[in-house]
């Protein structure tokens, strides 16, 4: 049993799902930023993806070099079935733990804000 996915790793895997076969570093960064408003650096994305690849959760593929990248190639990532399993498991963990508790959590948060 491997260790649970971190939050950042979950975000990345969700981004892979959303992007299908267009998932390379910059696109993943944009997807995360668009949905969560959080900026993440390319270095962090690749580091995390390397880790995920080492665990067999994602695989990668090298694209063609393009001019706008200064002649550098893209590296595309695909979510493997094993990765999908891990992702759904870690979301389940949160979902089952939070079951029925969210109203209370939100009430507490509102109290703090008010």
């Amino acid at each position, binding site marked *: 049993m491997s260790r649970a996915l971190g939050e950042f790793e979950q975000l990345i895997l969700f981004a892979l799902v959303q992007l299908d076969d267009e998932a390379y570093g910059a696109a993943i960064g944009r997807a995360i930023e668009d949905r969560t408003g959080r900026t993440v*650096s*390319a270095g962090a994305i690749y*580091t995390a993806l390397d880790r995920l690849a080492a665990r067999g959760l994602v695989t990668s593929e090298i694209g063609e070099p393009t001019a706008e990248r200064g002649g550098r190639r*893209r590296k595309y990532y695909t979510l493997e079935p094993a990765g999908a399993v891990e992702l759904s498991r870690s979301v389940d963990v949160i979902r089952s733990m939070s079951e029925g508790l969210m109203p209370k959590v939100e009430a507490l948060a509102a109290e703090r804000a008010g």
Partner: protein
Amino acid sequence: MTSRPPWSARVLLRLLLRGRGSEFVVGDLLERWERDVAAGGVGARRRARGRLWKGVMGSAAAWWRPGAVRDRRRWRPAGPDGNDDRGGDGMGMWLQDLRTAGRSLRRRPGFALGVALTLGLGIGATTTIFSVVDGVMLRPLPYDDPGRLAAIGTTFPTREWADEGAGLKYLAGISMLNVRDFAERTRSFDALAGIETTNVLLPDQGTGPELAGAARVSNELFQILGVAPALGRTFVPEEHEAGADPAVILSYGAWERRFGGDPDIIGRTVEPVGLPFTIVGVLPADFVPPETFLGSMPDFWMPLQPNHARYASRGSRSLGVVGRLAPGVTLESARAEADGIAAELAAEFPDGNVYPDGSWFGIGINGLHEDTVGTTGSTLRIFLAASALVLLLAAMNSATLLLARALDRTRELEVRVALGAGRGRVIRLLMTEAGLLTAAGGLVGVVVAFAGVEAFLRMAPSSLPRIDTVAVDGRVLAAAAAVSVGAGMVAGLLPSLFATRRGPSSVAASRTTTGDRSRLRATLVGGQIAVAVVLLSGAGLLFTSFVRIVSVDPGFEPEGLTTMFVALKRPGAEAEPGWVGWDRLVEEVASVPGVEAAAATSNPPFQSPSWGPRLLLPGDEPDRRREGIGGFAVTPEYLETIGTELVSGRHLLRSDGPEAEPVAVVNSAFVRTQLDGADPLGLQIRQVEGDTEVVLRVVGVVEDVVQTSADEGPVPAIYMPHTQVDWPFAQLVVRSSLPAETLVPELRAAVARFNPTVPPQDVRTMTDRMSASRTDPRFHAFLIGAFALIALLLSAAGLYGTLAHAVRSRQREIGVRMALGSARRGVVGLVLREGMAITLAGLFLGVVGALLTSRVLADLLFSVEPNDPVTFLVVSGVLLAVAAVACLLPARRASSVDPVEVLRAE
């Protein structure tokens, strides 16, 4: 078309993101840059740049986290990207080099510390001066689109104003009527705004009435500079009409200090004597007034009222003007237009615009930034060059140390080569060491820079503009990093290349000193001495100059004199003739116990004369203009009170009253420059003022009194009794042996008895005045002197280190020589000769270099030529003495070599 990101970012990308898989990260960052730039819109490039930098730094941080590095190294994929650089993981090798270098430096902590401190001094000195140059010269003014702001003022037709290059002219104030007409005619400016400094008198709050700094400004000023008030509003057009309800805007500081930061201040009134000003706004905290017009932040800002009676004359040039150039208009075309308008105004309104000989006042335009920096720019460039020399010297010094170390390690390095390390790998190892040392030096440099900037700000003369902008910040640190990299290259590359030049076969030969090797080191040490000589010469010249300034005979007795500025017009005495005020004031002050003498003048010593009377000597054409003569209105006791000696004739007397024959006293410079030395006693001088003419009889000649400052040279002066000149202010001069703490309150009280409404200003002892006039030369001498001292010490250390190292590595040779009968003295001579040969070569080069470059100092020097032989001799002597000590120590060590010990050790 793709747009390239800033080169600094590209370089950093290359340096920071290396190793397997980095290609994709870098590609992503560049791709995002492209998209951000292509998005267009206002500030797209700036935003893109910000995001790029954030991306680079963030990615690099994530890339080099220990966990990430480990993962990359452990994981060898069979995947398509496994071919990047299998086998020699760039990062792994680099880390290994780093560890090796760190280990080897830890073994020689003294050496490492020495190099780091040396480089740190150089980097710190350069960074300090760069932060000053950056703050004063490079950083744009803190206004909207500052490149299009210009200063506009009056230029004088006859006076030789220094042209500071690039068309920069000294600008005096300009009259309101000329500003109005200029604004109507110009097509070069979108907007113009006038600024005038003034004071407001605040009511007595228990500590006596207070004069507060104030400015009258056009409302356009705030629009031109892009300033929005923090509270309330700026002025409305009606408030600029003469007689409007008086409105005032507070500076942020005044709002906090005088009104406790009251948020409901708008609409309240301040009551400076008689006038209930209504506060309409508060300026933002970060607003900096244009320094070229306003030396310090005025507390109160009032609307300039162009129709006010005080602006009726074109001869009253009281306004500073700032303008915003219209789009596409260059300074050159604006200047050309201004020349034309000035000629038109002179033709249409000759009164106040034209001199008797037909020449007229010009209208000059400077870029606001250049006008603010003024002549300081060239001085700062000299400082920067001097600090760069210190850095160069430090880099050469470190190179010598690193070279010596590389030579000591020849055997180790050659073993590495023999074990299969390529030359490139060895160079990398040595460069990594140099890099580590430079990084440490850079850190030391940053510490030095923080302390240096602190010290600079404390000591810098107040004449330095924009001093508030100077700070060590990101820009400065980036420069320090760049400088460190450069220094590290110089210090590391040379020795690495040299030490690895020969192949493994040279191991056997490595114990003898080869010619090449000592030549390189001698060159490096000689270079250091040469640089030190250049800096020492500069410091010597500036120091000599300072000493000469201090030893100028001021022409009076400054000790015990106190001066203060007093406004003579006072309520209830408007009808009496002006001279009555002078007499009352002097009487009141002279009656203070402990005051030995009191007098008043329009300008005391160490202040520029503010009046240039138009004088005609017998035989002058009616339109003859004698320039540069200072006119002084003085009470008869003035010249005796300050202790100026009479050269011939008599002093002014009380009997030279308002009804008596007009008389004058002149100084020696007047006799020299205006009369070619002819005896002036009895001479009739015509003083012309508009349509009136007075004939003055010269009754005495006094010695020259220093006016502006000692380095300006004596001003031809004419002293006239206060009863004959109408002058609204007086500088009170008091001689007393009482200490300032007791005297000054008494004097203030006496002035308050004379005029309770206007307190005296600028109360200073004469010695303070003199000392303030010398801050610039003192500071120049001190700063360059400090650099020269660092240079002298570093180069002496370099010389010592090199000779000591040579003696150490030649112990065997020396031992053999002595065993063969060579006398100890001969051995000492051997080392001394080598050291002195290097020193003399360096000295010669340095003197040539100094002679070639010292001309840049010409503007900063007083009564010493840039090639002053005495200075150069003294500098050479000092250097030779220090070098002799540096040579003698290793020489003595060589002579104490015991041949038996040495040979046995073999």
